[in-house]
């Protein structure tokens, strides 16, 4: 079959359109469609992967060649990220299958499909305005998903998200506008080629706008006020979606622009510093959280800080490490959110103190949570260990020893609060009364897949590193991007 990257956008969008209609006839179909779509897309992603590894696939939409028309750029990096998104999406769908029992189901799946479409769109598009559209699709879907439970807190969180998210899109749009005004093109590769000619002042101006715009979405410190609320109030699988898909998409965008368009040394330093601050503040805040999902949210922010540090170092090795961490964080944090979802469900409260002794009552779910916790702390032989190690070595090689120390310090904090929760799960008297409800098989399978991935990557890290190498190269190598992006 002849696959095309367009499928990544078109198929979920179509599915999102289809779902409400089908929902009028069959609820089961609504549940099944996203799964089928994601399965199909995973298949597409995997079959396109080797091709993309050889040479980036540049798909031209509507016959206009770049730089005039919209093009999709499906290189090794996009392939890597899209595959990751599909994996996470599939797992989350599987989990949601039994977990989301609240109506309107079709809206949930529709929004989910929109998020997938938007996020993959951001990752593979070669056009900045197109990216704006996808960003907005993702954002609007994400706002709605945050408020999906229709409760008091959900609405509040969603509103905050929306408020800050609007800033993000406004700044991004302004940046797009300024780029267009200065270069007269919207194709990223073309802009990259023409950016040298742009004087420094507007360049910096644009860069700041980009930085703030994507900084909001990728949870950099002063800009991440929305994140803890949104993570904790959205349905649990959506927490995974945020951590594993939405944030990663905007991180991708930020990095792509940083490397391809600007390449200021000072910008990377700023990102590094912001990353350190983000990480420290988030981990410290996570330490004192009373609610498990809020804790996970802060932990997620902290991990983003870590990723930003690695990106901020800006070397080839550090980008590799960052991408590795992107992958690991997506997998592990999704696992944690999924496990936390059922833990909260069984304990009937969002509070950490309500989780006492659930390890005896719900052994498998608790085990997955514990495994995720150990992995994200960075203990071998789980995947988190390797990426943390890579980040540390690359950061140290870049000469930022203070950052190494701070990363390790925040690692200790992280260990403390995760182990507190794990300890409560296993070593407290069982207080929950929930002996009737069991974690459904689909949920367990979903978590199991992620757990297996974590263990597999932990034991054979070089396999994933082999995939990351070309991806990192794709991100760092500006000339190649321009070359392939403009179809030279």
């Amino acid at each position, binding site marked *: 079959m002849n696959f095309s990257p367009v499928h990544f956008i078109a198929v979920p969008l179509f599915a999102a359109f289809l779902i409400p209609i089908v929902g009028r006839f069959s609820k089961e179909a609504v549940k099944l469609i996203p799964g089928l779509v994601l399965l199909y897309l995973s298949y597409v992603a995997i079959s396109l992967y080797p091709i993309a590894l050889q040479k980036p696939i540049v798909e031209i939409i509507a016959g206009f060649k770049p730089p005039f028309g919209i093009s999709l750029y499906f290189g090794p990096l996009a392939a890597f990220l899209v595959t990751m998104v599909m994996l996470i999406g599939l797992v989350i769908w599987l989990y949601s299958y039994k977990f989301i029992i609240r109506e309107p189901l079709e809206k949930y799946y529709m929004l989910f499909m929109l998020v997938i479409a938007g996020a993959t769109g951001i990752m593979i598009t070669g056009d900045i305005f197109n990216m*704006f559209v996808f960003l907005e699709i993702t*954002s*609007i879907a994400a706002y709605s998903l945050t408020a999906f439970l229709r409760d008091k807190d959900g*609405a*509040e969180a969603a*509103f905050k998200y*929306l*408020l800050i998210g609007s800033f993000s899109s*406004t700044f991004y749009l302004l940046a797009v506008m300024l780029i267009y005004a200065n270069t007269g093109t919207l194709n990223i590769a073309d802009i990259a080629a023409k950016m040298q000619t742009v004087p420094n002042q507007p360049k910096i101006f644009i860069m700041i706008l980009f930085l703030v715009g994507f900084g909001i979405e990728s949870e950099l410190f002063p800009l991440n006020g929305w994140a803890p609320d949104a993570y904790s*109030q959205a349905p649990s699988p959506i927490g995974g979606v945020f951590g594993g898909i939405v944030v990663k998409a905007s991180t991708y965008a930020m990095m792509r622009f940083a490397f391809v368009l600007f390449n200021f040394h000072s910008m990377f330093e700023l990102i590094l510093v912001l990353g350190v601050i983000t990480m420290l503040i988030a981990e410290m805040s996570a330490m004192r959280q009373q609610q498990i999902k809020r804790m996970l949210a802060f932990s997620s922010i902290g991990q983003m800080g870590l990723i930003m540090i690695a990106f901020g170092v800006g070397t080839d090795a550090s980008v590799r490490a960052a991408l590795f961490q992107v992958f690991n964080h997506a997998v592990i944090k999704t696992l944690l959110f999924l496990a936390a979802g059922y833990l909260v469900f069984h304990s009937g409260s969002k509070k950490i103190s309500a989780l006492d002794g659930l390890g005896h009552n719900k052994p498998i779910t608790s085990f997955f949570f514990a495994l995720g916790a150990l992995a994200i702390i960075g203990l071998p032989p789980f995947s988190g260990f390797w990426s943390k190690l890579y980040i540390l070595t690359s950061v140290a090689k870049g000469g930022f020893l203070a950052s190494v120390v701070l990363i390790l310090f925040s690692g200790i904090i992280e260990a403390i609060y995760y182990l507190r929760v794990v300890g409560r799960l296993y070593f407290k008297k069982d207080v929950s009364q929930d002996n009737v409800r069991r974690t459904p098989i689909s949920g367990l399978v979903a978590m199991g897949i992620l757990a297996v991935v974590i263990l597999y990557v932990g034991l054979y890290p070089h396999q994933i590193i082999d995939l990351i190498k070309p991806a990192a190269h794709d991100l760092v190598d500006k000339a190649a991007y321009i070359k392939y992006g403009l179809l030279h």
Partner: protein
Amino acid sequence: MIYYITAILLILIGMYAVLTKKNIIKIVIGLSIVDSGVNLLLISIGYIKNGTAPIFSVKGLTPDKMVDPVPQALVLTAIVIGLGVTAVALSLVIRLYDHHKTLNIDKIRKLKW
């Protein structure tokens, strides 16, 4: 030039509303104004005085007489998106009012720290 100034003024007014007004509906309105400002800015980039539509309807029409069509396309999209965001925002405002019985954003801060 007036377009640019107006646009920037609109953005600033909107920002002011968003940052200082306590009523969430006013905040949403502020967002909307910012949106309009950005759109105005965007469209004015491609504007050329006395320009015409970029359609080769008249013979001898040179590209430098045509307004840039791309910003127009962009703005159309942006307006639609802005509308969508505003709609979502307003629906959230309704939901918030249902739950909190207030529109004061200072009172809606159960999720904190």
